[in-house]
């Protein structure tokens, strides 16, 4: 909401406050100052002295203007809405105006089509006052040429009023709040709330309410008004807060709205057919509002109707056809109270937000309905003449005043944690307009938010200020949670991986339909990805079921940024739906590596590409001992493997690893092989939790034998490793594969064979082995290899 400093000063004198001090005062009231608008220097009132056609441009005129300097100034101008003698805003050279999008431009002397122009005459939109871009802004003729425009339109605060404080959605409301906090007198407001106008209950044909959305409605009729332009003071007030003046009647209703926070509506009596009927709309009823749009209504919406048609969407917006225009002579002024939630629903459903709906949907003081009408009538009679009917016609009841609230001062102190004296508590509440009754506080009718004791504590805390509250620093022992243990585990993996040359990526958890094809996590047990009901766009319509899609997009993006050689890891939550429709959230870790193994350097001018064995090495660094990659059938990857800890049926399956299919990699502009792995991190955490126990260091020497064997080219080394692992020989200590050789030409080896060479180590814990013992054990191993794996020895 825009609040004009000049307007506020109608009620409170802040002349001794600097802008910063006022900003602070507002801020510690709980009203956030989002911005302060003030007009720039070198923007002054100027009178147009003459205007002639530009010699070389049909659409331009050459004007002489009086800017108060004594010498006429020549300005070339494109607007046509002004007359000689009008006062307009003039931006002199050096004036810096807002050009939108956070940019500014500076007015300079220049030539337009060869004619010198020493400044610019401005529209209201060009100086950022209102959105009126329709020709020059015509100022009050009473202004003196040369007056800085910032004196006519002083600073305006853009305030964010929190939803619990609708009473601050007006100048009077803000002034009341500030006066309380600054301990100042509130002036010029006593007449606002109360009404001296006699009222009478409406006859059915005058006003009828047939809906619960409107508890109270008033109307007052003024005959013989003269609709016309508002006086300068009124126009300037509205313009200063960004409202465009329309005519005196409409301007007065807007003024009262911004002054008191009570929305009003003025109908042209001549356009009403019979009395007012406040009713719910009929399903499918259409309404042409004064913004020129037609709105389809439902039974949920309330309308103000006459006997034949709707003339306003109650509390939201009036109609195009029933408003006050220059031909209007008789006016019906509506001032009413509507139910908050009903207005909110309609405004939201129609996406139609007006200054009126903004206030009604937050809450308006029902006890100011009559007073606001009085203020408007008084101004109408002053500014538009006419004669008001003696009585205000009312329908319905003003809702009950807020109940009083009891506050135990000890409770108040126990929440704040400070020894706030009783007198201070009472002084604060009194300053805010509350009054102390016998055993509870009476609440002013505009404070709709003060219902419970804690609501009063909030008032005391807010005004007392946290600056005056001590800072307590104390805590107790907090046992570590499962989440703590997991956090520590994950942190360890993060630092291991970053030391190994992996960058941590953090991708959005929302991915596209297309990216789902990159996923490795949803392969099994009927798990499926989860789609949003209302995605923002088709780039983000699924929750990620795995981390690989995001990492591939990251690698692809980096390729475009010029980083082709990358290692990434990502940790985080992934989401899948079970076949029964439940959601499951898991913590995953994914790795991606592609490109050259190290940076090119003097040490290695042509590093080789990373391969699946590098991926395995990284996995071994973060997994407990006993990692296995077990080949699986999975056409989403080349060399697809299940990542397992342990062997066979007892193995813990952590996830999948492999190489991205080359066609997919090429689609992503990734030329080198891309290795990926994704594992369930919580499974890894529990697999890694095994106890470590010391084993005695060997006291006796080992004895090793090498064996080179010829096997079928497609026999996986993992199968041979499994074979060794399952070979029962107490003396067998370790097996190391030290050579793999294959000759596709078939010269040195048959092309369908490969040679694997192992170094096998034997050791006993209690003696030095005899050569014969080793030979026996080794011979047994070779026999068993021959029969079990059909190998030949070289």
């Amino acid at each position, binding site marked *: 909401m825009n609040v004009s400093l000049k307007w506020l000063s109608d009620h409170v004198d802040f002349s001794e406050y600097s802008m910063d001090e006022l900003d602070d005062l507002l801020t510690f009231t709980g009203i956030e100052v989002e911005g302060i608008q003030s007009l720039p220097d070198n923007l002054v009132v100027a009178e147009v002295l003459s205007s002639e056609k530009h010699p070389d441009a049909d659409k331009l005129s050459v004007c002489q203007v009086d800017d108060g300097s004594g010498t006429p100034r020549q300005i070339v101008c494109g607007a046509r809405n002004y007359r000689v003698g009008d006062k307009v805003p003039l931006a002199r050279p050096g004036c810096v105006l807002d050009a939108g999008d956070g940019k500014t431009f500076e007015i300079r002397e220049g030539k337009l089509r060869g004619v010198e122009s020493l400044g610019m005459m401005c529209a209201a939109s060009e100086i950022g006052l209102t959105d009126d871009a329709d020709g020059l802004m015509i100022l009050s003729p009473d202004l003196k040429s040369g007056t800085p425009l910032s004196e006519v339109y002083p600073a305006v605060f853009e305030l964010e009023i929190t939803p619990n404080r609708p009473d601050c959605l007006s100048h009077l409301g803000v002034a009341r709040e500030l006066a309380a906090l600054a301990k100042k007198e509130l002036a010029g407001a006593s007449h606002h709330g109360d009404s001296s106008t006699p009222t009478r209950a409406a006859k059915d044909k005058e006003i009828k309410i047939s809906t619960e959305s409107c508890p109270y409605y008033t109307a007052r009729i003024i005959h013989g008004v003269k609709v016309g332009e508002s006086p300068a003071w009124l126009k300037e007030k509205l313009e200063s807060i960004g409202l465009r003046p329309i005519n005196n009647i409409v301007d007065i209703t807007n003024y009262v709205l911004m002054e008191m926070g009570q929305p009003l509506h003025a109908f042209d009596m001549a356009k009403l057919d019979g009395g007012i009927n406040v009713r719910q709309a009929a399903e499918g009823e259409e309404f042409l509002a004064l913004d020129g749009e037609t709105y389809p209504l439902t039974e949920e919406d309330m309308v103000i109707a006459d006997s034949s048609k709707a003339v306003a969407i109650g509390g939201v917006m009036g109609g195009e056809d029933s408003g006050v225009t220059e031909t209007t002579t008789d006016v019906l002024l509506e001032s009413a109270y509507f139910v908050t939630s009903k207005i909110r629903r309609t405004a939201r459903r129609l996406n139609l937000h007006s200054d009126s709906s903004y206030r009604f949907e937050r809450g308006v003081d029902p006890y100011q309905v009559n007073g606001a009408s009085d203020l408007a009538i008084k101004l109408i009679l002053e500014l538009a003449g006419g004669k008001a009917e003696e009585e205000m016609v009312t329908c319905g009841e003003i809702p009950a005043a807020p109940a009083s609230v009891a506050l135990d001062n000890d409770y108040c102190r126990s*929440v704040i944690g400070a020894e706030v004296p009783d007198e201070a508590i009472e002084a604060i509440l009194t300053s805010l307009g509350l009054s102390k009754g016998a055993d509870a506080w009476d609440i002013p009718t505009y404070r709709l938010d003060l219902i419970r004791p*804690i609501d009063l504590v*909030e008032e005391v805390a807010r005004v007392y200020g946290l600056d005056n509250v001590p800072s307590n620093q104390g805590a*107790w022992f907090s046992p570590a949670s499962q989440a*703590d243990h997991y956090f520590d585990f994950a942190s360890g993996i993060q630092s291991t991986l970053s030391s190994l040359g992996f960058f941590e990526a953090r991708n959005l958890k929302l991915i596209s339909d297309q990216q789902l094809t990159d996923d490795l996590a949803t392969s099994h047990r009927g798990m499926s990805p989860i789609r949003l009901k209302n995605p923002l766009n088709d780039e983000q319509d699924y929750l990620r079921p795995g981390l690989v899609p995001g990492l591939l997009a990251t690698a692809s993006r980096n390729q475009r940024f010029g980083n082709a050689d990358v290692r990434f890891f990502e940790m985080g939550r992934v989401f899948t739906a079970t076949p029964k429709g439940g959601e499951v*959230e898991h913590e995953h870790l994914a790795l991606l590596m592609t490109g050259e193994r190290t940076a090119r350097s003097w040490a290695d001018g042509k590093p080789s590409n990373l391969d699946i064995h590098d991926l395995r090495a990284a996995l071994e660094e973060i997994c407990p001992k006993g990692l296995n990659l077990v080949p699986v059938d999975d056409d989403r990857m080349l060399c697809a493997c299940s990542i397992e800890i342990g062997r066979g049926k007892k193995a813990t399956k952590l996830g999948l690893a492999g190489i991205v299919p080359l066609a997919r990699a090429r689609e992503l502009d990734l030329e080198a092989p891309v290795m990926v792995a994704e594992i369930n991190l919580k499974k890894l955490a529990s697999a890694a939790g095994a106890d470590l126990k010391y084993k005695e260091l060997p006291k006796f020497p080992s004895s090793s034998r090498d064996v080179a064997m010829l096997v079928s080219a497609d026999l996986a080394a993992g199968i041979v490793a499994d074979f060794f692992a399952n070979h029962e020989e107490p003396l067998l200590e370790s097996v190391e594969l030290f050579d793999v050789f294959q000759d596709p030409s078939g010269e040195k080896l048959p092309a369908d064979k490969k040679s694997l060479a192992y170094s096998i180590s034997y050791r006993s814990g209690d003696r030095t082995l005899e050569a014969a013992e080793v030979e026996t054990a080794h011979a047994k191993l070779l026999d068993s290899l021959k029969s079990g794996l059909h190998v030949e020895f070289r």
Partner: protein
Amino acid sequence: MLAELDAIKSDALSAIAAITDEAGLEEARVGFLGKKGRLTAASAGMRDVPREQKKDVGQKLNEVRMAITAALEGKGAVLTAAKDAAAFASIDATLPSRPLPEGGLHPLTHVLNEAVFILRRMGFALAEGPEIETEWHCFDALNTPEDHPARNESDTFYFENGKLLRTHTSSVQIRTMEKEMPPVRIIAPGSAFRRDEIDATHLSVFHQLEGLYVDKNVTLADLKGTLEYFFRELFGSRTEVRFRPHFFPFTEPSFEVDLKLHATGKAAKWIEIAGCGIVDPAVFTEVSTKRGDAAYDPSEISGFAFGMGLDRLAMIMYGIPDLRLLIENDVRFLSQFAK
């Protein structure tokens, strides 16, 4: 004989002195001390030495042998030292390093870790909750009015089954109180989701850090002391912290926390960094109804809660101008935070 030995010694020492390489050294050793060497040959002549001279000649022989051996060893040491020196003489230690792959953590992780470390020292334990939430946990239990704008489909992501993506980590407050008995002292970092178009200051998926402390007699003074200490640990002991009255449905009184930032060349500015307040009794009432017990009876216990945006914290801490940098994972960006 003695004269001959002196001659051998003098020849040997001058020959050894002239040696320049290891081959020469070996040649000299063989030439004088080897099986057919001059000294060996001379010592063979001992048997012809008259008995009364044997002692003197023997002594001489020994002396000459030791002198030659010492000279050889001395020369050997000189040659080895020269070779050792030569071996690394051509090494240029100023060459750039042999590259190791560079890696590092995401700046958001740095900020998150630092915040978590500080808060754990202050006695908070970590807590977590689902990101796919029920409307009850995300809104109802947190005293959010039924027609609050945050519940709109235009603002919040929903699923067909009526669940939603949590719009704040505050739902973890509820999840924790549902299953833990008071006192509760937790922090919950995690993702939150809002239906915002991504731009320099908005992300549809962002990160928050939630805090909750529920016990007997928890006060605003405790909240103030906790957050002041936390932000001074994070941003430096002289950081100015202020609490501005504000409004949140689930706390009352509510405050926003501002830090005064001093950027070089600019006027110091208050920057909004967190929201906080005393847990609204209505939240305890909701939790109590759900639990079906009086563990969180608002007349018996009280609490404070706070929440802050981690992405925003990272932006402020590192001077990152655009949130999109945090989700692009550009290596040139990430490597700035690698050390």
